[in-house]
């Protein structure tokens, strides 16, 4: 039977390193995919921030109080690492240039993941964040508030704006096919 997160953390704190391996295996994919969405498809950068997230987890598991889920806690660390990275390096293209619409329309290798990452480039960082946490991770608004520290009203408005933009982009995408 699969151990719960709490059991794995408890075992890790008694010196069982394999428990950390299990936690890493369990959460590596969602955290990496979350950061791929935030970085709008920069996989190398997303993996680098993800690694830093799990290293922080390794050194901070003893201070995890358990007042939120491990998933929420990890997403919070990942988001803060992402913000820190953005402050240090302005490597990501957050340009709202309408020309980038064409990049979506003329992309020939339309697997849905590539399409989503292209679409994410058209959203602001906050819209990307809130939409991903809501629709991809499946978090409630209060969980999103825990991760981002944003008020509920702000979260709802970012999600709403993100949804509207995505709907318009999808319509454009359909029309150009």
């Amino acid at each position: 039977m699969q151990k719960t997160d709490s059991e794995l953390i408890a075992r890790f704190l008694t010196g069982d390193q394999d428990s950390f391996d299990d936690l890493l295996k369990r959460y590596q994919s969602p955290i990496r995919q979350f950061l791929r969405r935030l970085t709008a498809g920069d996989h190398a950068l997303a993996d680098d921030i993800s690694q830093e997230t799990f290293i922080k987890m390794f050194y901070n598991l003893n201070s995890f109080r358990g007042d939120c889920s491990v998933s929420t806690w990890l997403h919070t660390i990942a988001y803060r690492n992402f913000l820190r990275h953005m402050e240090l390096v302005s490597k990501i293209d957050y340009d709202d240039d309408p020309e980038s619409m064409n990049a979506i329309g003329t992309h020939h290798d339309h697997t849905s993941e590539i399409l989503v990452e292209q679409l994410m480039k058209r959203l602001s960082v906050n819209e990307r964040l809130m939409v991903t946490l809501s629709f991809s991770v499946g978090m409630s608004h209060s969980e999103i508030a825990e991760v981002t520290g944003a008020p509920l009203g702000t979260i709802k408005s970012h999600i709403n704006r993100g949804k509207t933009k995505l709907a318009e982009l999808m319509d454009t995408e359909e029309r150009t096919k």
Partner: protein
Amino acid sequence: MTESIGDDDQPQCGNFLLENLLSYKSQLDGKAFHANVMARIEQRSRQRRWVLGGAAILAAIAVIAVKPEEFSFPSTLHLPLENLGAIAAAASPHGSLMAIMLACVFIFGVTKTVDSI
């Protein structure tokens, strides 16, 4: 497709298309990622050991370098630390020196550890 989100705490059911589009389609293969994370943790742990060991050596060198002939600093304190000063004075000069050196290493180590976290 662009209906507004309600005031409740959960995304609404009408968002099915968007949920479907945005859902994570597959589990990413984590072998290389896992190996990288463990390697970086090992590397960081090694660095920590070197930093703390280096700090201990530097602290020892610094204390020995500035050591006065008569090491009586703690016993001359006239603050609330008087009792501590009396205890330190009762100890041998080398004992006091070692205590201060260990305190330096401890403070440096704690600061460095907190900083790395």
